[in-house]
């Protein structure tokens, strides 16, 4: 069977879709990377980030998703009963069996006439949910859909991932473009089977294939999704005002940006991993919320997520004039980042359930 590849490379709905509302969440506690190095590396060695966000004892992906969803709904200015889907992407859903999304939907008053479901694809579960929501709205089946990417990621004590595995994320209301504070022009996803990072059932901490994490996984997928999207749209880095990439540390997204031709000025507002860590399903999209907090009408944004296993969703977004009236309707991402209480490793170990009580 022969098909024209370019005819269905980009994902574009028949009915234009936009971002009606967006909301971030970052918990208030921070553990500096140097504090983790003090415990596990004698304080020596380079640090991948400055510090990471840690959830409080009463927080999990459900509670954090509820707050991000409330922020997104405050900006969207729609009745929660107009939502036809509540979808939450995460690799740290509180239950093995029992959806996160139903609790979130109940808490924001969106039940019962909705689709609800939890998405999993390592760190790109959130953008996977967004792309599905674009299809749901773009087909006309739904007027509005809520897609969330949120995580409370854990790294094995002493492992390289412990320095960066953090908590946070973002929620987006997708709706018709004419009511959007930003329009999603197109998306493109690039997916292969790559064994770079995984966690088996009943295991508390993930494993990673050290030699696989960089080139064949992160860079191959993010560069392929971004390049294909830009080529198909006939644009290049200079056509964008801002860009944001999945950020497992500070270095990877900056190198990917440089390889794609973006300047540090284009990526600075969305580069949050140095101060909140890798928020997994939330990482690229919380960067997008920080960009939307400062963006001007007409600004064009490139976003590319990455999920181990592996895949990348790239999105081409244009901000509309509706941004100005909506961005102040909820707490801004940098305000969450500024609300900060530093904790030591012992408090961190208690908050993250690393101390065995029985």
């Amino acid at each position, binding site marked *: 069977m022969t098909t024209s590849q370019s005819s269905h490379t980009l994902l574009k709905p028949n009915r234009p879709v936009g971002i009606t509302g967006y909301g971030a969440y970052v918990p208030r506690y921070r553990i500096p990377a140097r504090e983790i190095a003090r415990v596990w590396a004698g304080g020596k060695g380079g640090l991948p980030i400055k510090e990471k966000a840690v959830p409080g004892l009463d927080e999990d992906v*459900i509670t954090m998703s*509820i707050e991000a969803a409330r922020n997104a709904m405050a900006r969207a200015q729609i009745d929660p009963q107009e939502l036809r889907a509540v979808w939450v992407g995460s690799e740290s859903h509180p239950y093995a069996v029992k959806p996160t999304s139903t*609790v979130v939907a109940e*808490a924001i*008053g969106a039940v019962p006439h909705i689709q609800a479901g939890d998405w999993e694809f390592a760190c790109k579960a959130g953008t996977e949910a967004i792309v599905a929501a674009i299809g749901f709205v773009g087909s006309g089946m739904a007027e509005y859909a809520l897609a969330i990417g949120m995580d409370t990621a854990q790294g094995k004590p002493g492992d390289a991932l412990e320095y960066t595995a953090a908590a946070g994320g973002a929620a987006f209301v997708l709706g018709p473009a004419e009511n959007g504070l930003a329009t999603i022009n197109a998306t493109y996803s690039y997916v292969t089977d790559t064994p770079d990072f995984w966690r088996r059932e009943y295991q508390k901490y993930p494993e990673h294939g050290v030699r696989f994490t960089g080139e064949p996984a992160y860079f191959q997928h993010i560069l392929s999704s971004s390049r294909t999207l830009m080529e198909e749209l006939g644009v290049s880095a200079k056509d964008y005002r801002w860009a944001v990439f999945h950020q497992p540390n500070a270095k990877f997204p900056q190198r990917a940006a440089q390889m794609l031709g973006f300047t540090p000025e284009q990526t600075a507002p969305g580069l949050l991993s140095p101060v909140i860590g890798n928020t997994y399903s939330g990482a690229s999209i919380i960067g997008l919320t920080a960009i939307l907090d400062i963006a001007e009408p007409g600004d064009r944004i490139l976003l590319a997520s990455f999920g181990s296993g592996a895949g990348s969703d790239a999105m081409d977004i244009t901000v509309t004039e509706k941004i100005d009236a909506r961005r*102040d309707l909820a*707490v801004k991402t940098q305000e969450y980042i500024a609300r900060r209480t530093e904790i030591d490793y012992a408090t961190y170990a208690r908050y993250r359930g690393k101390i065995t*009580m029985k």
Partner: protein
Amino acid sequence: MEISRHWRLKQQRYALVGEVCPHCDVKIFPPRDVCPVCGGEAKTTFAFSGKGEVFSYTTIYEAPTGYDQTVPYTIALVKLDEGPMITAQLTDLGEQPVEIGMPVEMVTRKLRNDGDERGVIVYGYKFRPAWKMPSQA
């Protein structure tokens, strides 16, 4: 196991949904279907804003079963902007001292496990120091 009770209370617990009296407009929380002021029937649901202030508080060091993993924590009497007074935990205090009259706002958090870590997780309202929004300066 109290699963049915948790299920029945979920709206008021997750989102501070109470009632408003159709006769005298008094806001009621928790919902009780009868107006405490005029005695009339009051079954109209009302979603509270979640804004209020600390009326009184105490810190718990010896917690009842189910809450012992989060000690020490602070319990407050919160006077909601719409009138009712409710009891709830304060959260996200950081190093911030609690004061009478402190503005607070509702957040939905984990309250406890029903039984042990095999049981359902009970979610509900707590209050944290209110954000000062630029738009509300």
